[in-house]
């Protein structure tokens, strides 16, 4: 699904690939439209019996997995389990459809990258996943290796199907420090302050927020945080658990109304519906000071580091999403992607080898690789590694944000899965584009199935 791709494209430093050469994204689209069937024929598990295949989202962050695979293949554990792992990198925006096609074919991967939750629901229902719950609880390395909340965030019906394998990706309110300094502004901690800032910025001819509306998922982030701040994480939890009436919660309507106010007020400028994050438009508007703030996943930092390094190092500020005055949600709550996961195909040729490979993700060396890349690992040992991060301050901020969060709401589209998520995207796009009113939005969402 688009969001997954875009998001994890950003998700991890994939955005670096896109933002530096957004043409690549389009190239991948070509592949998608022309070569989908051809894609299914990569080297799958059909190799020699000792080798298993791992599909991974092919962005810049893949370096960490490459190093991990190389390390694992040389290890004694691999020898004991009798084989090696072959990593297959799938170009970002192609990932979801290719995985889907491959999983239905004889050349399915043994281990595959995913977003947990809704993104693997269809595979679970088709009996294609190994239930890792017992394996994890029986294995001290896996059991104590990861932050429990992150491990649980990818669950389906309380069962674990994935092992965290990339950095945490909370959504953060980024701001342009030089613009803020020039207009004597502080990052908003309440909604009123945010509106107050907006008014001052607009007076100065600056768009308050950059927004990649063409991708839709950046718009979703606004609703996710607003609903959380107004009604708490329970509102979406109800929807996620399959109760479509949950969309009728007053918090959803209120959030949609606030979105409409922001849009009508010009908080995102007038062109946001055709600005994209994936092609680098929104980050550029933000870095160049045309917009003062940007609500985005933690990958905004590596993205800016790739595109506008000076801005990223000197003028990129970060803050939590503000509190909504009469809302019940805790201001420390976080939305976003807890991380990405490895899951194991139920029809793998060598389950022991696959599980042994997953354990490497809990290792010190693996976490160190993630840190060096600018990511914050979700392993229990992450805290002690933070000081060696390229930007320790930012790493510490992310880590604390996630660690202290009473609730971490998984991105809605990923929590709901592809079928519902895509339709929800359509409705969100219409709301932001002014094609439907907040109450029409709520009605439409209630009817999603």
């Amino acid at each position: 699904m688009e969001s997954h791709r875009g998001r994890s494209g950003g998700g991890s430093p994939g955005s670096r690939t896109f933002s530096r050469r957004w043409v690549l994204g389009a190239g991948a689209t070509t592949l998608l439209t022309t070569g989908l069937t051809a894609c299914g024929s990569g080297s799958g598990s059909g190799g020699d019996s000792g080798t298993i295949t791992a599909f991974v989202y092919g962005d810049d962050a893949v370096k960490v997995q490459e190093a991990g695979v190389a390390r694992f293949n040389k290890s004694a554990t691999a020898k004991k389990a009798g084989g090696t792992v072959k990593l297959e990198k799938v170009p970002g925006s192609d990932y979801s459809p290719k995985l889907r096609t491959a999983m239905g074919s004889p050349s399915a991967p043994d281990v595959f990258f995913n977003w947990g939750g809704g993104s693997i629901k269809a595979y679970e229902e088709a009996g294609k996943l190994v239930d890792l719950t017992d394996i994890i609880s029986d294995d001290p390395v896996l059991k104590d290796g990861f932050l429990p909340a992150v491990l649980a965030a990818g669950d389906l019906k309380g069962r674990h199907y994935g092992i965290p394998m990339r950095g945490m990706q909370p959504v953060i309110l980024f701001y342009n420090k030089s613009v803020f300094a020039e207009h004597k502004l502080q990052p908003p901690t309440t909604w009123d302050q945010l509106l107050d800032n907006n008014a001052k910025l607009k007076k100065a001819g600056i768009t308050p927020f950059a927004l990649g509306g063409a991708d839709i998922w950046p718009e979703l982030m606004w609703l996710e945080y607003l609903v959380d701040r107004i009604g708490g994480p329970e509102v979406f939890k109800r929807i996620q658990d399959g109760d479509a009436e949950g969309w009728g919660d007053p918090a959803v309507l209120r959030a949609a109304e606030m979105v409409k106010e922001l849009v009508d007020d010009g908080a995102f400028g007038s062109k946001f519906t055709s600005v994209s994050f994936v092609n680098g438009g929104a980050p550029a508007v933000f870095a160049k000071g045309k917009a003062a703030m940007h609500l985005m996943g933690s990958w905004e930092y590596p993205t800016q580091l790739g595109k506008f390094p000076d801005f990223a190092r000197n003028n990129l500020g970060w803050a939590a999403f503000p509190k909504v005055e009469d809302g019940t949600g805790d201001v420390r709550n976080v939305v976003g992607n807890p991380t990405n996961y490895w899951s194991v195909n139920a029809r793998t040729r060598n389950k022991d080898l696959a599980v042994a490979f997953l354990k490497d993700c809990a290792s010190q060396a693996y976490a160190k690789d993630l840190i060096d890349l600018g990511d914050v690992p979700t392993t229990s040992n992450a805290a002690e590694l933070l000081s060696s991060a390229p930007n320790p301050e930012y790493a510490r901020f992310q880590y604390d944000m996630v660690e202290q969060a009473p609730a971490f709401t998984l991105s809605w589209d990923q929590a709901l899965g592809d079928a519902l998520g895509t339709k929800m995207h359509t409705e969100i796009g219409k709301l932001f584009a002014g094609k439907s009113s907040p109450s029409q939005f709520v009605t439409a969402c209630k009817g999603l199935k």
Partner: protein
Amino acid sequence: MSATLDKRHKQHKRHKGYKGYKGYKQPAAQTQGTRTGRPHAAWALPAVAFFTFFAVVPMALAFYLSFTRWDGLGDPQPVGLDNWRKLLDDPRLTQSLRLTVLLTFASWAFQTVVALLLGVWAAGRQRNRAVLSAIFFVPFLLSSTAIAVLFYALLDPNFGIIQRDVLGSSSGAFLAIVFVGGWQFIPFHTLIYQGGARQIPQVLYQAAAIDGAGRYRQFFSITLPQLRHTITTSTVLIVVGSLTYFETVLILTKGGPGTDTAILPYLMYEAGFKSYDFGYASAIASFLVLAATGLSLLLVRMTGFGTMRSTREGM
């Protein structure tokens, strides 16, 4: 069939022999003559096989899938007419159909008018026209994805060339799609019209000039009527092409703003490769096949193209 073939061979031989008798020096004529004529039916086999495997079989499979539920994993589950019922109930179908028809018509109007004029102009034998029409042909050689990516960059609201939010407004996005499609395909239709216009006997123009007809009169009374079949050919190609137009929409607008450029093929893509509802996507695909076939048959019938009446009748 083979009898007719043989007859033709003989006729050809006779014809060539006659030429030889007149004294043309054509030593190869005799052997060539035996090779010309209608080829054996087996020659069609590669094309038929190709068409069967890559068009007929997938179409049949899509039709079959439209009666099932399939998310790409496991086996398709038969669900009878569910997808087709859902298709008729889908509120997005109405909008999508309207947009598809509108896009088809707009593309037809834009491409036909420009290509017709350019083609007739390019039919002239002047050298500058030959050079320019070669240049005009270039866009057709590019992949439509590359073209869409190019225009997407040019139309970027903040960093593009016009810095206006073209793709952000419903009409702007729609017109952009029509324009980009036209930019790509007008060269092809120009070529068709160029060929068509060159076929028109000069005698007609000479006669018209004697009768005192001016340029415009000649165009409307000779060129246009003589291009009747060419227009039909080009129209059918444009209509079928527009009905299946996809990459440009995916890259330029992703169906947006909102759903205001979500034409049927895009809806199909979304159902298939974003929602993984291949059954429903196949229903949309089958519907498109039926609509496109029906529409082109209708066009051919309405214009009398099928009867192949000559434009030279009575000359």
